[in-house]
């Protein structure tokens, strides 16, 4: 009973009190306290994430096919934490570790996307229908708008590209943002009314 209702009461109570404290000057100091609680709890989320990741990879150690990856992850995770705790993020070895591993690895992973996009552009952007043709032409113009060679080929490309970004794209993005905001509000109302309980981990019954 307690396990089921306590998290729900806490979520609704804190959520409603936050909304009220934001609009009422009488209890505005409560909002500052809640802000502080939130910042502390998000910092704890990092700890929970680390514990959860460790748990998964601890289990993987029993599986020979996955063992090597989990060991590598464990060494990287706890080695970095340990080095950070000893030296802080400014230590010489920590800097070397960062510059020699994270920087090239992240850059390499991101740059791989360029290869996949090139291959996808060849295979997917085909004039199969009117809509697909429209997308193809728009993609080509926006691509040329973003690079100096576009203006060198024809000065009209940056003009049309800018129009595409500012008018049709902005209109679509506004619609998506408003839709997401309305969806978020609807979910919040459902949580406050007790209709949405999937966040408690027990389904939405």
């Amino acid at each position, binding site marked *: 009973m307690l396990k089921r209702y306590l998290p729900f009461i806490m979520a609704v109570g804190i959520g409603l009190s936050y909304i009220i404290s934001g609009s009422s000057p009488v209890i505005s100091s409560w909002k*500052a306290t809640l*802000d*502080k609680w*939130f*910042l502390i709890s*998000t*910092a704890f*989320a*990092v700890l929970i994430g680390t514990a959860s990741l460790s748990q998964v990879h601890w289990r993987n150690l029993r599986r020979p096919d996955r063992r090597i990856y989990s060991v590598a992850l464990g060494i990287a995770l706890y080695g970095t934490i340990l080095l950070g705790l000893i030296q*802080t*993020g*400014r230590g010489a070895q920590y*800097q070397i570790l*960062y*510059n020699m591993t*994270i*920087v090239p*690895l*992240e*850059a390499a*992973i*991101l*740059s791989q996307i*360029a*290869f996949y*996009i*090139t*291959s996808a*552009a*060849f*295979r997917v*952007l*085909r*004039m*199969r229908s009117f809509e697909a043709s429209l997308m*193809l032409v728009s*993609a*080509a113009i926006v*691509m*040329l708008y*973003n*690079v*100096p*060679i*576009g*203006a*060198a080929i024809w000065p009209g490309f940056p003009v049309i590209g800018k129009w595409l*970004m*500012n008018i049709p*794209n*902005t209109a679509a*993005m*506004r619609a998506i*943002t408003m839709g997401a905001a309305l969806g978020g509000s609807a979910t919040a109302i459902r949580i406050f009314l007790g209709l949405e309980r999937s966040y408690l981990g027990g389904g939405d019954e």
Partner: protein
Amino acid sequence: MSFWHKLNQMDSRIIYTALLLVLIGALIFPMGLPINIGTSSQAAYDIFNHFKAGDILYVSFDYDAAGATDIQSSVEACIRLVFKNGGRVAAGALWPIGAQQAEYLFRDMLKEFPDLVEGVDYLNLGYKPGGQMYIEKAMDNIAEACANVDNAGRNLSQSPIMKDLKTLKDAAAVICGNHGSPGASEWVPMYATAYAVPNKIPFVVCASAVNATINAPYVQSGQITVYLNGIRAGAEMEILTGQLGTAVAGMDAQSLSHLLVLALMVLGNISYFMVKRENKAKKEA
């Protein structure tokens, strides 16, 4: 199998190799295509070139090493102008790796401006979790939002710069280096709309190119004062500040790789229609 069929089903490895050759070729033999200065880059240059001595710029490094390829050159150019004019810089990060990016950039700046003193002219506040809530709290009290410690774990009261930076409202301008969430979407409602726009404080976003579509409404509405888009803006800022770097060097590679993608799109469509025609002819036969 006909030529068009083969072309239509071209192996990905051929495409990857072609792109690799184009990129390497452009980097080894730069063409030096002219880079026109856009209005956004000029506006950013004007803001930071007129920064007064002692003014504080707050920079939020909301990106990682992957985003840095697109963003860091713009951020670096803006910070360079601020230091040149005697301004001060405080850095925070809503992304864990962002704190390291700030550390990386300040280290480079020290080579250029060896007289800068940490804690006096610049300070790295480090990674602060909470996203939107951190910004809201920092609007009232930065020290409390940072749990009173900087990136090196020192008490913030030890840094003289913090005496003039009690809240985000004390910053003469804010830059958000944006590669995703948390980033500009969090800064716009909590800082730009609530404070920067009504008080005419510049809020500059240096973003990776993929974020252009998401941020376009905020630029159009004026919630983002200046939007520096990707490596292109970085190259323009490098030209304006007279310090040519990786962004200018990468522009030819970007131009040629875009041309390759366009050429492949054209080839793909020609082969698609030719195959379709061949199939139709076979059916009729």
